[in-house]
């Protein structure tokens, strides 16, 4: 069944888009991430212009992260204070990212910038996650308890001033790394058209030692707010959000996310991290391949303006 998308200006198969929403939703529910890093490339692949894809995916991520955040809220697995701290600098990061996005777009180097940042981020984060989770799995094999949170293990980050106590997460850390992480996530999200959940979760775990109990819920609140405001910003400035496409994606996404969350809860933490690491790494490699291998067509077209 074909449906015509009013903003993307092309017809798509409803079931294909619904299926994509379900699949990405399943993965996002399983790992507690928004899934933008998977959905944006998929939409571009089916012929939707990158600008519309990035703008529309933001509303899809807002929907799925809201579902997630609500269920974590019910389980009290959500640190509002930490989320608000991250948000305060996240918005600044988004604004900087949007500015750079516009500049690069004018220079025709946006695709390259997006490609390079996908490759760098996804391969490094993916590799780190694979390494960490494999080590954790091996440790459990050898009979040692796989504790991610080592009490008393302090890094230099804990020596920084402006210390704050986050009760729900049971951490006592400086505000500087919290702000820095929020800024980086906001910035990267605006440039790459992703929610940044797959980056934020490991960052919170490794740098701030946020316990796994609250990390996903907190990350979802941040994703929800940045993606909801990104939707409004994209709609108000560039008129690029396709509500029909967004609706189909959302319906698929939230249903998929529910089933994904169930699968995720049955799996062990380190197994889950290994799988996510492999997925992130694979997407990174896919982008690297595109940059390095000679493209089928050296020429490409970009719409500048009508008239």
């Amino acid at each position: 069944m074909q449906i015509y998308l009013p903003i993307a200006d092309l017809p798509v198969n409803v079931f294909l888009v619904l299926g994509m929403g379900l699949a990405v939703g399943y993965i996002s529910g399983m790992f507690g991430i928004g899934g933008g890093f998977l959905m944006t490339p998929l939409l571009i692949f089916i012929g939707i212009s990158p600008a519309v894809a990035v703008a529309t995916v933001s509303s899809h991520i807002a929907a799925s992260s809201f579902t997630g955040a609500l269920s974590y809220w019910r389980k009290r697995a959500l640190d509002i204070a930490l989320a608000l701290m991250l948000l305060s600098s996240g918005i600044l990061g988004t604004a900087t990212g949007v500015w750079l996005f516009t500049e690069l777009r004018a220079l025709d180097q946006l695709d390259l910038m997006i490609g390079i940042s996908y490759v760098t981020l996804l391969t490094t984060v993916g590799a780190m996650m694979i390494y960490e989770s494999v080590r954790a799995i091996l440790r459990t094999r050898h009979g040692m308890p796989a504790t991610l949170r080592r009490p008393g293990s302090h890094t230099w980050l804990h020596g920084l001033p402006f210390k704050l106590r986050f009760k729900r997460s049971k951490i006592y850390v400086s505000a500087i790394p919290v702000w820095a992480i929020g800024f980086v996530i906001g910035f990267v999200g605006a440039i790459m058209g992703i929610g940044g959940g797959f980056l934020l979760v490991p960052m919170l775990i490794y740098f701030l030692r946020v316990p796994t109990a609250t990390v996903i819920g907190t990350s979802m609140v941040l994703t929800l707010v940045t993606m909801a405001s990104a939707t409004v910003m994209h709609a108000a400035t560039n008129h690029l959000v396709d509500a029909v496409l967004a609706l189909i994606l959302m319906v698929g996404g939230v249903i998929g996310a529910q089933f994904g969350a169930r699968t995720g809860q049955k799996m062990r933490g380190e197994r889950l991290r290994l799988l996510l690491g492999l997925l992130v790494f694979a997407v990174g490699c896919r982008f690297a391949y595109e940059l390095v291998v000679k493209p089928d067509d050296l020429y490409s077209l970009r719409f500048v303006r009508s008239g």
Partner: protein
Amino acid sequence: MRRLLCTLIVLLCGLGSAAAERLVVSLSNHRVAVTSSFVGEELVLFGTIEPDPVTSPLRPPYDLVVTVTGPRQTLRTRRKQRVLGIWVNVDSREFERVPSYLAVLSNRPVNNIANQDTLRRLQIGLDNFLLPQRIGSDVADTVREDPFRRSFLRLQTQQGLYRESATAVTFLTPTVFRAAIPMPAAVPTGSYGIEVELFTGGNLVARTNSALDVIKTGFEQYVADAARDYGLLYGLATALMALLIGWFASVIFARD
């Protein structure tokens, strides 16, 4: 301007000679409505060749070229090159105010209908259509072998937006013809011009034009208008929709 001049010359020539033809055409539909189930459609242009004045003799065989142009837009063609091992856009050209849709439909290959000079002058065929490029501060069309021009045509043709078909026009009798105008699913909305040109013996003998509109209707139009005219409200509504769906899903699935 160039076209106008051509028309004037043709008109003068037409007046000068005793025999002349007149084209009468009719389009199956002047309005293509893009709805939610739009997957493209085909318009049909019917026409006859009439003697003008009625007593003058006809001069078959005739050749017919129909050129359909969509609303103008500016596009940038970019070229990639390997820099430090990765493929980067190094060069680009802007194609200024070129048709978003361009179909050159004829009864046989345009190169067999008239000589190169005539085709060039009348802008008939994709190779001869004026595609002004911005190069530095200049805006001009290039030679047809120009790699940017060739790539631009190739990419537009791949998307089904540009086409040249030597079989789309069929003569039902020596003076009655039918032209099939394909409208792909991704057809841009706006006003389209249709130019019908009649040739005999390699010379243009008559021309006429028509027009059609491609419009979005119903829900699609409503959404597109809202997105353009009330961006902020539209964005807030979309964000609200996201929250509602997210909330709805969590309520439905929270029970079990």
